């Protein structure tokens, strides 16, 4: 499994993702390279279970293994109110 990139790169990418986030985060980034943001498949499918962390502002960060076995991070905004019983 690829390791995550340096913290500075990760932080930059997360901030960039938050800026452009819509209803849900769009901070998909590859983790295999620490030097450049490579072209990746939009809406990368998770090929593993997800790991979740939430920062003090309530923003969630979902980590998962992508189709190329790299680790991906995607932001999940907080403060949603969704009616119970949404179709799945």
């Amino acid at each position, binding site marked *: 499994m690829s390791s995550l990139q340096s913290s500075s790169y990760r932080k930059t990418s997360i901030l960039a993702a938050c800026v452009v986030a819509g209803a*849900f*985060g*769009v901070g998909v980034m590859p983790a295999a390279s620490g030097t450049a943001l490579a072209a990746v*498949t*939009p*809406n*990368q*499918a*998770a*090929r*593993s*279970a*997800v*790991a*979740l*962390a*939430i920062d*003090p*502002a*309530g923003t*969630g960060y*979902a980590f*998962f293994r992508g*189709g190329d*076995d790299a680790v991906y991070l*995607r932001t*999940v905004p*907080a*403060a*949603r*109110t*969704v*009616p*119970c*019983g*949404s179709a*799945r």
Partner: protein
Amino acid sequence: MSASPALAGASDGRVYAFSRGLAGSLQTATMAPDGAVTGWTGLGGRLITSPAAVSAAPGSAEVYAAGTDHAVWRDAMSGGRWSGWTRLGGATYSAPAAAWIPGSNSTHLFARGTDNALWENTGSAGAFGGWQKLGGVLIDGPAAAGAPAPGMDVAVRGTDTAVWTASYRSGRWSGFTRAWAAAAPAAPASRLLGTDWTRIPVGAKVVALTFDAGSNAAGLPSIESTLQAKGVRATFFLTGNWVRGFPAQANMIVQDGHLVGNHSMSHLSFTGLSDAQVTAQVQGAQQAILRANGADSRPLFRFPNGDVNNRVLADVNRSGYVAVRWTVDSLGWKGTSGGQTIQAVVNRVLAAAQPGEIVLMHLGSNPKDGTTLDAAALPTIIDGLRARGYGFVTLDALTG
């Protein structure tokens, strides 16, 4: 270690790490606020999943995992002393998740039940109220984290492979919302189509061990134990009927880090099927495997009985799969009643050793004599190949 680790950060700056060791017991290490890390310490247990952990107070940690009885178990530490494992019940084949809501004194446990729904169990100071069904259809274990507000979120993968999240705020759960729609995987490279591959076209001395599953799982415990002990990942071709019959084993294969391919729904010989029947066999197995253990079997496919012609090969390719045959069939599946021995299986595989060798073995026992010769021969096969300078790869070395 044999499964994904779990971390719990305490408010005093310590970080507690947990992972399942090679023998299935839990291991723990602690990082102090100054960055100093202890060595690993064993906490015992026999785990079938990765652990989940939380820390609700300085100097304390709680860890959860499923045991060999598929129930969720708990161990807790306070003041440097561990309580020992206690059984919290439930039934799961997947790793649980744990969350602690800041400011509360409750730990919330989540698990994918054997009915594939999400279940929750809430406790305080080790006393839990029992499992409550939250619903949904999950394809693997959930994730959970405490959130400010206060509250918590859970994230799961649904049958569409998308990530879904739900939030707990002010004492009630939201419904699940799809976080993003998962894109379809890229189609296999055209160079991989039109061929039923019999070896990986490489010059390096690597071998791919592959195991077909279609009958039973009698050899799997031994095979898994050998692969873990020797640090080898393998590729498992599963039928849809097999994963439905052996869901615990199907999840074990994925959680131990092996690669999964598609071996059809019901192991019929394909050349006697119509194009539509072939497609149904392939796609039916794909869905069954995904629902069983969350694995996307694409792009690896193996024809049942090796029965193939150009027509069915094209059918399989159109479904997004690369067909993979084998360099050598160990013939362990024939059993002692078929004139095979452990040594004959070993000799056959080692004699065929070559760069890119694909070895065919089976998980199940011979139906006549009950032997599992492939499982019995595996340690000697791995040692013998290594002695000849070979390393091991999974079949993504072929598909890229």
